[in-house]
């Protein structure tokens, strides 16, 4: 591989690290290694880990304010709020959650300020004997805040391609020589999850131990409500709703660059004029296919920039929005290549 290609591959690897983290953590949970403890994620941006969540509830601790309500599915129930604790507003709750954690995943922030609070929380997790895995871009400014933990010898580097990953000893051992990028492990896990109907994920092996993952996921797990009224409608209807003006937001799995196919339902007119935005970028669909089920929107999504919420915002044309109901996303599929 020549130097530019290598650089590109390194950058790509760093951007899709949370895909590998999700695969690894889900495998750990499925194997029973986490016991009755709770997997906890420390983050300063809005993210979701759908494969780990297929194994049971996750606790999220945020070190920055968040502005959306997202949901998890309850067996035989209505969508319930995904449990996200604001570490600044609810420090006692955050501490209590960490005391019950068996695994703590730390999404190292892009900036140091946010990472200082996160490092203190990670230290609590270690005190509670939780296994710790830190991951992020190598150049993320937040790494410096964890130097203390590194110096204590509590964390070991893990092979992760272009990303930087540190893990506590037990986890590093579980990761093995292949490190985070264990394609065999990922393929096996995907097969298990699909057979057990815990997730609809298809993993295809590509060159050089790289993978192509296709995830189909209930869109309710990704719907992000910006207003309490919409959040309560989602909880009541159990659908990934747009609001009555046609505005909606969707969490993206992993934040990695991907191809997305979304089925928009109950739209009353063409949606070609929809506004679609991710970070500071406006997006146009690759294709819009109108069927009896609704409008299939095909998108090529860039990576979520470091330090940004993995949120895709959509607004539909006025005439596409019904007067007597809500549009929703009825199906969602994401395809990610790790190379």
């Amino acid at each position: 591989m020549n130097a530019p290609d290598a650089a590109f591959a390194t950058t790509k690897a760093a951007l899709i690290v949370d895909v590998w983290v999700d695969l690894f953590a889900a495998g750990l949970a499925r194997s029973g290694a986490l016991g009755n403890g709770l997997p906890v994620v420390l983050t300063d941006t809005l993210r979701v880990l759908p494969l780990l969540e297929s194994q049971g509830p996750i606790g999220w601790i945020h070190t920055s304010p968040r502005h959306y309500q997202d949901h998890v599915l309850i067996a035989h129930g209505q969508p319930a709020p995904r449990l996200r604790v604001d570490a600044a507003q609810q420090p006692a709750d955050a501490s209590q959650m960490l005391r019950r954690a068996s695994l703590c995943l730390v999404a190292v922030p892009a900036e140091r300020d946010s990472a200082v609070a996160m490092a203190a929380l990670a230290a609590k997790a270690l005190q509670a004997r939780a296994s710790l895995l830190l991951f992020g871009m190598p150049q993320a400014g937040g790494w410096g805040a964890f130097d203390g933990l590194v110096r204590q010898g509590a964390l070991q580097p893990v092979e992760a391609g272009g990303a930087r990953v540190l893990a506590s000893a037990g986890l590093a051992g579980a990761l093995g020589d292949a490190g985070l990028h264990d394609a065999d492990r990922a393929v096996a896990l995907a097969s298990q999850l699909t057979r057990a109907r815990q997730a609809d994920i298809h993993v295809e092996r590509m060159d050089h131990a790289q993978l192509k993952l296709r995830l189909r996921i209930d869109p309710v797990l990704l719907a992000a409500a910006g207003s309490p009224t919409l959040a309560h409608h989602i909880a009541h209807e159990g659908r990934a709703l747009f609001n009555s003006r046609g505005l909606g937001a969707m969490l993206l799995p992993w934040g990695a660059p991907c191809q997305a196919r979304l089925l928009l339902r109950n739209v009353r007119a063409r949606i070609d004029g929809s506004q679609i935005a991710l970070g500071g970028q406006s997006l146009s669909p690759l294709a819009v296919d109108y069927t009896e089920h609704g409008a299939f929107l095909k998108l090529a999504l860039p990576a979520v920039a470091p330090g940004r919420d993995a949120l895709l915002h959509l607004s539909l044309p006025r005439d596409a929005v019904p007067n007597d109901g809500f549009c929703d996303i009825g199906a969602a599929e994401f395809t990610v290549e790790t190379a």
Partner: protein
Amino acid sequence: MMDLSSTTPSTFAPSGLAAPRCLVVTFNRLVPADQGNSRRIMQLVRLYKNQGYEVDLLYHNEEGFDPALSHALAGEFARVNVVRSRAPKHIQPGHVCRIVDWYDRGLDAAARDMHRLRGYNVVHVNYVWYSPLFEQFGSDVVKVLDTHDVFGERRAKYTAAGMKPQWFSTSYADEDVALRRADAALAIQKEEAAELAARGHRNILYLPYVEPALRPFKPRGGDRPLTFGYLGSGNDWNILSMAEFLSKMQARGVPFPHPIVVAGGVCRHVRDGTGVIKLGFVQELHTFYDAIDIALNPMVGGTGLKIKTVEPLCYGKPVLTTLPGAQGLTHLWQMPMFDDNAALTDYLFDHFGRAGGSSALEELTASAATTRQALDAEYDGQVDRLASWLASRV
């Protein structure tokens, strides 16, 4: 009844600075809390909150769910999960219900996941057929069951009154198994607590239903005639009771010289021409109670919480009740009680058969105030017992 001397220290790790957490499980729609059972449940929610608990709700949706309720519950509870009810609720011949047929196993996974996320110190379920939920929690979680009623052979109370049994009624054996799953089972009436204790249960605590006093007990002023009133929903016990009472009153052959106001869903079942003033559904209770001087409770029977016996005392009004209506409160009742509606009717005509009657009203009001004080004292005492017990276990 509950032996507080034999409490077992908790093995649950101390939670540090975070508030202790309680999970409340119910099928009742809690907002607005305008039914007896929802009001009782919210009484316990307030109790836990006053003890410093953070309270979550697992709502077993049998009474509807909508965005407004979602919003209202989010304001009351730290976390809310809603599970659609798929309980089969079979009623066997002879009107026998088995707890296994009324408990929804769909609650198990939701309860487990909530506990994994939140780490409860206490789980509080309502009604005996929810006790199987306790199996999802380890011995480190305190288990409280609010019985709301005695459901063992409850059908017999209906048949004794000549009515068809309604709703849940189980065997004593089934109910005993359910009660034994709880660390503490709350009884809403002292008689019920005694009955359950007599069946060998040592984890019973009597906790009466009390709501805050909203009006003082003070003499009536103004030019309004002395007015009697009855407020009740349209359930079978109320319909039967009201019909019998009015029948007895009419049988006297002379009109009662004071207005009798009837309010609530029972109005739909009160015939016209019976000499009462029907208000229908009353949105704000104080508008009814402020318009009357003496509340009537002519119950011929019934089970569980007798909210109409307690509620007038919150509005500063005395209550004339039959014994079935006072069940659970007879040990502290200071006002007259009547064996049946015939005796109640006799009392009314004897003491209020002529215009006036203010001195009798003053005596009744004083007795009502004393009753309220006794009820408050008893409630405070029982709350202290429950709180102490919880503190020793959590």
